[in-house]
Every structure is written in structure tokens, then in C-alpha cells.
């Protein structure tokens, strides 16, 4: 064990944080940066509640050692807020589509859906389901979650045309 300095970018802000080299990225984001959208559910990479984007790819931050984040760009739900403090289209869609029940899985699902939403490629409903298959919703509200992602994907693709 050792204390080390981690330099990375979190939600567009450069960070230099003293961490323990045994910390998971989820530990650091929650305990050092207080980004509590990152939920610790299973802590073994099965539930997806701790999903964050690392260099635009979705990872379970509970099974990602913080030391591996050196020089990388990390994004959490907190980073989706715009300059006026407003929530993003995907967060609003989760509200509109009643895709939130207990809410514990929500932030993970939203981060898992970001690579779909930010891609220039079309996604079918089945492809969307496959991309969010690493996230569990124990309230089983999957249909509404897929509806929310599908809706925002459609909107964003239409806006690009």
C-alpha cells in the first residue's frame, strides 16, 4: 500500500488527488470528490450502478483501480449539468418516461446510455438493450428505461440531420 497522487480530469475539471493505491475509482469519486451519483451496489461489476465514462467508454468504477485512471478523462452524471445548472435531455427523459423508481440504478443507466447517445450511428431497440444489459434495475423498470434512451437517441439523431 502506498499513497500516490492521481492526476486526471473529472467532469472537465483537472484534478490532482492523493489516493491510496488500493482504492477503486468508485471509492475516489465518492469519497474524495463527493460525486455520489456513483453508486456502490454489488461492488463486483455485476450491477452497473457505479458506471462512469472513462475516455468515453462505460466502465464499472467499482472494479477499476483508481491508479489506472491516471491521465484519463472521467465523466459522471454530475458532469451532465449544463452551464445554467440545468439537467440534460437524457435525465429529463428518465423523468418524463417514469424510468426512475427507487432511483439507485438510474445514474449508472444514464452513463451506460451515453456512448449510444453520443454516437453518430443508428441504434435499434435491441442494440440499445444490449448496451444497457450490464445494468440492473431491481425495480425491474427496464421498458421505461429503454423508452427514455430510445427517445433521446431519436431526438439527437433528428437534430443532427
Amino acid at each position, binding site marked *: *500500500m*502506498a499513497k500516490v497522487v492521481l492526476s486526471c480530469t473529472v467532469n472537465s475539471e483537472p484534478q490532482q488527488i492523493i489516493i491510496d493505491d*488500493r482504492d477503486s475509482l468508485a471509492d475516489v469519486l465518492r469519497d474524495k470528490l463527493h460525486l455520489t451519483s456513483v453508486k456502490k451496489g454489488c461492488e463486483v*461489476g*455485476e450491477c452497473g450502478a457505479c458506471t462512469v465514462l472513462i475516455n468515453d467508454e462505460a466502465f464499472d468504477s467499482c*472494479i477499476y*483501480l483508481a491508479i*489506472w485512471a491516471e491521465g484519463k478523462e472521467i465523466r459522471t452524471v454530475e458532469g451532465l449539468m449544463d452551464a445554467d445548472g440545468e439537467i440534460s435531455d437524457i435525465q429529463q427523459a428518465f423523468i418524463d418516461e417514469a424510468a426512475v423508481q427507487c432511483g439507485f440504478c438510474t445514474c449508472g443507466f444514464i452513463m451506460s446510455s451515453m456512448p449510444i447517445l453520443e454516437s453518430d450511428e443508428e441504434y435499434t431497440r435491441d442494440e440499445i438493450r444490449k448496451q444497457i*444489459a450490464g*445494468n440492473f434495475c431491481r425495480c425491474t423498470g427496464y421498458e421505461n428505461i429503454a423508452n427514455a434512451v430510445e427517445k433521446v437517441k431519436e431526438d439527437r439523431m433528428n437534430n443532427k440531420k
Partner: protein
Amino acid sequence: MYDIKKIYKATSVQDAIKHLVDDPNALIIAGGSDILIKIHKGKLAGCSLVSIHDIDELRGVSMQDNGDIKIGPLTSFSNLSKDHIIKRYIPVLGEAVDQVGGPQIRNIGTIGGNISNGVTSADSASTLFALNAMLEITGPNNSRIIPISEYYLGPGKVDLKNGEVLTAIIITKENYEDFTGHYIKYAMREAMDIATLGCCVTCKLNDQKDTIKDVHLAYGVAGPIPMRCPRAEKSIIGMKISDEMFNTLGKIALTEVKPRTSWRASKEFRLQLVEELCKRSLKEAIKKSGGVING
């Protein structure tokens, strides 16, 4: 926080080897999706680790001058599935690893780690067996190349001696050229599940596309380690595509496998899967080669 005694972040293969030699008890951690879970569950609590996670020279897929395809063992499942060389020449491998876990696991999990933890259910393993993958293992003094079948010494045990690192997975041209393949993962769920049985078949047809010129049949979870069925393969080489041929393959494969009962499934069910999935995989592989089933 993980219960790790110490962790060293290696910067190059030689650096990793040096630290592995210095600390013979240290384990190699690549993506961590097996090791960190074992630490979390206490099985590997207090271990020493050498992280090869940041060694970029071990990532990516490249075409060699002689037509062999070299896969860096740290290539993640998702990058392997997306890779243009894999898509074009060995699509069956990209399709197989696209069935691992879920998207987050496919982003962190590496193909080298998948085979190096020595489990029989690894989704990439049966396909790499069917492809006769060769493995480059680099140690303190030299590097050696061995077939994947010699890598597995037993469940959870692979032929990595102290200070050795898996540095490349090589698919030779003769094992992918003119071959088509298909992998079936039989599991209870469509995502986030471990294979009850995995079956990969690659085949090569004659010019008329009606006869099997060559076939490779490999299984995961049909025995303690991933395996091929050489007798079943031999029995149908040169046979016309027919029901008889499919039945022969299935029946002889049954005599070569040794599945066991686990909490996931019974031995009897696995035997049924062994017989059925090899036919289904071969049918798909034949179709991909332009062959016609039933006439």
C-alpha cells in the same frame, strides 16, 4: 478499498517481468475483472499484484508480413469485436467475445486475461482452440511460442512460469484463411451470464461447397479445461454435407468430452448440449462458407 498487500504499475513488459521475478508470489493483473472480484470475495485477499494494465504495447491487433494475425493480450473484448482486421478475417472471434458479460465488462476484460485465468467457460477460449491459436510467452531470459492447447495445465492453471507474461496471441494464416466459424454460447440469460456450454466450430469447404475439407470443433465447459474433439473432426473430413455427417459429428464428440454436474447444469444436460450445439455451430459455419444445408 481493496485488500491488496502491494501493487506495482509496470511500464513495459521488461519492467513487469523484472518485478514478477523480484516477487515470485505476485500475481499479474490486467483488466482486473477476475482478480479484483476474487480479492473482494476474500479468496485473494492480501495478495501482491503487478499491474500490466498500462502497457500499451500489449494492446491492439496487427497483420504480420506472413499473413498471421497478432492479437495483443491486453486488447479488450469490445476493441477486439470492433477491430477491422478481426471483423474481416476472423469474425467468429469478435462475435464470441461480444457475448462476454455486459458492455462494461467487455470494455475492461482482456482476451489475454480471459485465457490466462484458466477457466473452461471463457468465451474466447473455445474459439481460440478452434483457431489453433499460438501464444507468445515472454520471460526473463527468452520468449517461447506454444499452442494454446499446451497453455492450459488444469482448471485455473496455465503454463506461466515465474516472471513470464503472455505477450501475444497469434492466429496463423492457415487457420483462418478460407475458414468460416460460428460460436454458440448456451447460457440462461442473454447477458451477464457464464456459459453453461460454449461451442465453436470453424470449417473449410471444397470448391463445390458440398463437402467438408477441414473442420475444427472446440468446447468450453465440456471438460475441466477448454478442449478440441479431434476424433469427431476427423470422422467428417471429406464427407458430403448431410444429416449423416452432422449426426456423426455429434455422436463422436460425445465420446470425447467429459462434462460434469455443477450448480449451473447437470452432466446429462451438458452432454445433450455437446451433441446439439456442434451441429448447430457447424451448420452456421457452413452457411457462412456458402455451403447449402440439406441439398
